[in-house]
């Protein structure tokens, strides 16, 4: 069965510090991984997907099939990064998503 685990419910870092949000998955096939973000009073939106291999708002994420992980990283956190972050795993050609429990990131000034 597909499963996504985000071990940290809450993560707090200072502005300018590096940030890493952890995501581990369980899937027997070829995974497609996503990070979604929800800023305060905004709708859930796509941040990045692993097949794009791009950096969005300074965030990157590398798929590590050996460790079954897709951690989200940013070298220098900014206050506007404070939000709820969800890791998601796609199956059936990425039509259906399984989400992790979410991590609430707070960037302190």
């Amino acid at each position, binding site marked *: 069965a597909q499963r*996504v685990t*985000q071990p940290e*419910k809450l993560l707090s870092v200072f502005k300018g510090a590096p940030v890493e949000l952890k995501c581990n998955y369980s899937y027997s096939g070829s995974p497609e991984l*996503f990070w979604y973000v929800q800023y305060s009073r905004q*709708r*859930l*939106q*796509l941040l990045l*997907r692993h097949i794009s291999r791009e950096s969005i708002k300074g965030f990157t994420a590398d798929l590590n099939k050996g460790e079954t992980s897709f951690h989200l990283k940013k070298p220098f956190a900014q206050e506007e990064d404070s939000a709820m972050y*969800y890791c*998601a795993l796609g199956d059936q*050609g*990425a*039509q*259906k*998503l*399984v*989400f*992790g*429990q*979410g991590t609430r990131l707070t960037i302190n000034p």
Partner: protein
Amino acid sequence: DVKVTQSSRYLVKRTGEKVFLECVQDMDHENMFWYRQDPGLGLRLIYFSYDVKMKEKGDIPEGYSVSREKKERFSLILESASTNQTSMYLCASSLWRQPQHFGDGTRLSIL
């Protein structure tokens, strides 16, 4: 820009009522989804649809049904609302093999 519109931002209903949550998308997307979002549990898929009049159960379909009579509209139905269905409900749509786009959500309270 993709627009996924959920008919209500807030809704209060009573136990035992039949509740309809409506979702409309304006980008001719084939796929539509209903999730519920609960603290500590993330998003859980209730039902999804790949085409008109087509539906498939997600991970937590019990107590819910759906209707997709037109491509742009996907309705979630709570047949007999119960207090444990108090939650935030999110609708999403997507093209084939493309990322999902979400609505603003409906916060439903069952009293």
